[in-house]
């Protein structure tokens, strides 16, 4: 049954040969006449008129007088072909040429009529105007002011709800917090641990080269210990968590916003902030300092391993040196940054999610912004911490 003939019969008008659509001007008027004769032939369907479309306007159409189009040769016509024919005649008529189409099969004529009745006026819909450079700069600047304002409002709302929840502890969703602790913290253990371990190795390796020249091998413990505990481990953990969990928060809330789930929550009397933001923020505040302690340890392990292979420093000597190099405040300054980073990541991620609207595209864009912005703010906050701790002589 897969014969070619049955395939061909499938479309009645395709039985005619699949020739390309043509429109030619047969006869230009001689002196004293003003009738131009044109002829259509071939298959006027969406797949066959592409070539003709470009040529049709370039034909030597008259500026005045009369055009007679002989459409007997049209073997097949669909709405696209009908549009092309209609557009051609309409353009001519707009120039003041009178047009007659002859010999169009009745079923095709009804097509052209249908298209003509639904036809849209050229330029009926104004194209979108592209703003100039100055306008773009202005719009961007205004958008970032708006952004900052809405973020501040969001943070304010989050803290109001936090205070309310503390006043009424029944409203805190412990189950959601535990779930977030698992997904943002426990599940992040392998990746944060591995990266911090590698970071320890890198620092020890780079330091070893320099320290060896001065015979100060043992100070590699100071280098690794202070660098990891004070700066690198909290910063790197925050960056990884921002990429891992901040993006997830933005995507989750953004999708819920697009599918109107956020509105649904509001209508059943559950505050979306209370359900979605607070547990994430609280979980991250708990989890990020813990992760930082953990990455402190793995980072130092990495450094220790490198110190032994590269500098021949035994674990005992390293740990002994570490003990005297690290004071409590070094450890605590590192850890104390983590809750602030956690708040930044959770609030930025969630806020971006709430900013999504309408489309899948918008969710993607907001997720990107969430990650970029939270990493940016984490590093800015880290710089501020450095200044503050410096002033406090910590």
């Amino acid at each position, binding site marked *: 049954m897969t014969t070619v003939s*049955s395939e061909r*019969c499938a479309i009645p008008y395709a039985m005619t040969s699949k020739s390309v659509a043509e429109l030619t001007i047969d006869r230009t008027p001689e002196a004293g006449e003003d009738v131009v004769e044109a002829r259509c032939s071939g298959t006027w369907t969406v797949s066959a008129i592409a070539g003709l479309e470009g040529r049709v306007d370039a034909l030597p159409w008259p500026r005045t007088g009369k055009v007679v189009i002989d459409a007997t040769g049209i073997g097949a016509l669909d709405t696209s072909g009908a549009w092309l024919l209609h557009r051609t005649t309409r353009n001519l008529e707009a120039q003041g040429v009178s047009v007659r189409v002859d010999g169009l099969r009745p079923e095709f004529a009804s097509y052209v009529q249908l298209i003509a009745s639904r036809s*849209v006026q050229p330029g*009926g819909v104004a194209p979108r105007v592209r703003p100039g450079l100055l306008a773009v700069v202005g719009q961007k600047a205004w958008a970032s002011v708006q952004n900052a304002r809405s973020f501040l409002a969001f943070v304010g709302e989050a803290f109001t709800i936090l205070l309310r929840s503390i006043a009424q502890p029944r409203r805190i969703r412990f189950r959601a917090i535990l779930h977030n602790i698992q997904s943002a913290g426990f599940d992040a253990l392998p990746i944060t641990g591995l990266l911090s371990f590698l970071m320890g190795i890198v620092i020890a390796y780079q330091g070893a080269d320099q320290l060896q020249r001065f015979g100060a091998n043992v100070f590699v413990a100071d280098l690794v210990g202070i660098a990891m505990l004070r700066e690198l481990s909290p910063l790197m953990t925050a960056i990884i968590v921002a990429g891992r969990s901040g993006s997830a928060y933005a995507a989750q809330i953004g999708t819920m916003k697009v599918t109107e789930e956020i509105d649904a929550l509001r209508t059943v009397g559950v505050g979306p902030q209370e359900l979605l933001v607070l547990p994430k923020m609280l979980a991250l505040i708990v989890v990020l300092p813990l992760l930082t302690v953990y990455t402190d340890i793995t980072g130092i392990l990495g450094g220790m391993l490198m110190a032994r292979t590269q500098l021949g420093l035994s674990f005992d000597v390293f740990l002994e040196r570490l003990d005297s190099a690290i004071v409590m405040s070094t450890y605590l300054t590192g850890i104390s940054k983590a809750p602030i980073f956690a708040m930044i990541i959770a609030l930025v991620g969630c806020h971006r999610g709430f900013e999504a609207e309408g*489309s899948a595209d918008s969710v993607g864009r907001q997720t990107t912004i969430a990650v970029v912005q939270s990493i940016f703010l984490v590093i800015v906050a880290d710089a501020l911490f450095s200044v503050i701790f410096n002033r406090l002589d910590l």
Partner: protein
Amino acid sequence: MTDRATAANLVVEIDGISTHFGDAVVHDNISLSVRRGEVFALVGGSGCGKSTLLREVILLQAPTSGSIRVLGQEVVGLSDEQALPLRRRWGVMFERGALFSSLTVTENVGMVLHEHTRFSPRMIDEISAVKIALTGLPADAGPKYPNELSGGMRKRAALARALALDPELLFLDEPTAGLDPLSASGIDDLVRSLRDALGLTIVMATHDLDLLWRAADRVAVLGEHHIVGVGTMTELSQLSHPIVHEYFYGPRGRAAREQAWKQK
């Protein structure tokens, strides 16, 4: 079906289709055919597998066994590349529209033309506008994004996209689901007028009884993994099969039928 003329007149031929999801049987040896130029409807309760059957016909899902021929070509087991010429000959409208949310309505329609034709951008915009007008949308809907449209307008925009390449066969999945009665009856009229004006064959999955009475030429009722009845609405309403009976003589079925009689 040995007669070639008859075969050529059948646009969709479903032969012995069975579908299983693990142990769950959805279809058991279903056979159906759709004739050229008719509005054919698949009906049945929720979860009876009408959308699954539709998805199998349009190559989004493979049946467990059996054969489906669309426009004379076997589609079961067809690769994406082999299916391309066939896919250009049919249009699909999904239940929730499935418009690309990052594109305007005009771009949604034009995107299909951009992919498959060599028209100039101007021609594509014009054809898109014609298609949008054909589905009864106002011209100012063109530059809007899908999330700025109402549900009924979104369905019409989805229909405009399905019509972009002048298909000969149109598949509609729940064309009136989620619409208010007024918009739904607008869709009923649209389905019929498109068939009449463009000579389309339309296959739809629906459970909207009003749409069935007003627009469908023939209807197949799915139930208990089988086809329990095929025919015009009048024929079906005389069948005694319990599922068909329940379907047509339930409270809503009766109301829709009386409404349809009144209009005749």
